[in-house]
């Protein structure tokens, strides 16, 4: 697997969530993703970016374009927030500590091909998702 390009988008204010959506859309479109696949990965990015901002108290998204054996888009959301004590609980639909519907994490997982989460209480959370073309 080859990382073709890498860029970072900061996530410190609400407007940054919109920037994440726009940038992910642009890159997914350049990679030739179908409209449905673009929509799925942008929606997943929107959910995860909001999580990083609200639950993680801010952080950043790294966007990698992948090539070999397939074209793909890998997004890494990282924060130094409070961390997630029970990941399996957090992934369950309907679970929320905020004011949302609790679909963010589990929903985002369903919209991508690969999903990895590493979280340490008191240290932060890193979520990596990949959508292959």
């Amino acid at each position: 697997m080859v990382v073709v390009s890498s860029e970072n988008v900061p996530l410190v204010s609400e407007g940054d969530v919109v920037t994440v959506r726009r940038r992910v859309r642009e890159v997914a479109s350049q990679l030739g993703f179908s409209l449905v696949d673009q929509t799925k990965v942008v929606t997943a990015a929107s959910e995860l970016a909001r999580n990083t901002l609200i639950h993680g108290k801010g952080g950043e998204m790294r966007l990698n374009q992948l090539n070999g054996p397939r074209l793909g888009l890998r997004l890494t959301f990282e924060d130094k927030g409070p961390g997630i004590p029970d990941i399996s609980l957090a992934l369950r639909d309907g679970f929320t500590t905020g004011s949302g519907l609790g679909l963010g994490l589990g929903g985002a997982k369903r919209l991508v091909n690969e999903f990895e989460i590493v979280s340490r209480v008191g240290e932060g959370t890193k979520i990596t998702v990949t959508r292959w073309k």
Partner: protein
Amino acid sequence: MEKIPILRMGEFLLVTIQVDMHDRLALALQDDLTNRISQTGARGVLIDISSLEIVDSFIGRMLGNIAAMSRVLDARTVVVGMQPAVAITLVELGMSLAGVRTALNVDAGMELLRSSEDSFEDNRAW
């Protein structure tokens, strides 16, 4: 702060969402619409989302809230124009927009709003 315009057409309110909404803008629309329904005594709200490229759980929740609040204020809400890719993604995300009446386009949505309240309730009971 930017705002999403709410147009009044007879006894209905019309909203066309044409910007990529950040969360605060979505919340502001929810408040504005609720106030306008109460001020104008509007009987229906039509929300055109054909320009929206994604509906995530936050925007989905906003649409559900608007439908619920307008119902409490005796107005009906119809969401129209959802792009097919958005519909596919929304369902996979886990949102079915229960309680939100939808129509394919503005014409069909207006038709639905104009139809009698009884049949509207029937339509909703799926």
